[in-house]
């Protein structure tokens, strides 16, 4: 198991989590009683791509896998910087 201890499974603490605003988009589901729809864990899938897209928008470097750690960002930016340096420097 990759993360078999809480000390290595780094999830946000109360000091890390940003303010979360919840908005409801209510479109009744015709197959559900009174239009009800299960929401379960589906919204779980949205944030990661949104964050990776935001990073791309911010720094122009794209990533397409998670977990995305500062070390990964750093490694890719170093490669990007090396590619920019003129030869002989």
């Amino acid at each position: 198991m990759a993360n078999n201890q809480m000390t290595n499974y780094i999830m946000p603490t109360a000091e890390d989590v940003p303010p979360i605003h919840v908005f409801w988009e209510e479109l009744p589901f015709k197959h559900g009683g009174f239009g009800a729809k299960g929401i379960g864990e589906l919204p779980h899938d949205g944030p990661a791509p949104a964050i990776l897209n935001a990073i791309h928008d911010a720094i122009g470097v794209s990533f397409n896998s998670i977990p995305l750690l500062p070390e990964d960002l750093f490694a890719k930016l170093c490669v990007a910087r090396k590619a920019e340096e003129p030869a002989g420097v």
Partner: protein
Amino acid sequence: MRGNAAQHELIAPGSLPAVLDLLSSAPGEWTPIAGGTELMVAFAAGRLTASRLVSLWGIEELRFITTTPGELVIGGGSTFSDLRACAAVAADFPLLDKSASWIGSIANQTRATVGGNLVNGSPAADSSPALLVYDAEIELISTRGKRRLPYREFHTGYKQNAMTADELLYAVHLPRRFAQHHQYLRKVGTRRAMAISKVALGATTLIKNGAINEIRAAAASLAPFPARLFKTEAVLAGKSPSTGVIQAARQALLAEAQPIDDIRSNAHYRKSVGANLLEEFLLGLNREIETR
């Protein structure tokens, strides 16, 4: 939970002399346990090899913080909550106060002890960089008496230290002479709270005629144990923190540091961030020199 409580003997003699007698009567036989924030984690994971433990919790002779004109003396049994609650620590040793707030969570700080943090000897130990740049001394005690050594000589290898099997860490002595020093401490962890260090850098220095004087720089997680960066200090001593000096100091740190890849980070990141922290400290010095 993989620990079996019935397989471990735990006793609490309740006084310092009684514990020291026990340790000297059978050196290496009994493992001291203070707040348990390390050993109980090992216990629950089924990794606690010590079958005989002696409790240091509640021994008042070890849990004190006293001030003399020249020194602050912190008993090895003092918790990090004790440090945070002590006005003298915040006033004279702000970097140590900051470190104490980094130890786990509040619920860990009420139990984790200074002695335990140092004797456990993790390269990432939170209190170590501050203690190193404050020229701390460690006082050890046994039935044979007390002895002191500079903290920078305490760690001798990965999770190895200068203590003998019959000794306890009695106190940490801090010289009260840093009021005029520029001081810096920053930890880069995995998140904002309850974060084990990826790298941390501490530094203290005087500025005399615009030049660095009596520089101390120390890091966590850039060596097998928390350590001073002596070669980096040598590059900075007597110099003004100009652009050229900052670059030279960065290179010295990058050469001196020996971090590893582990589950928390990698060597490349640690070294690079360590150099960035050093640069941040030196740029801060520049700004302060200019405003005087």
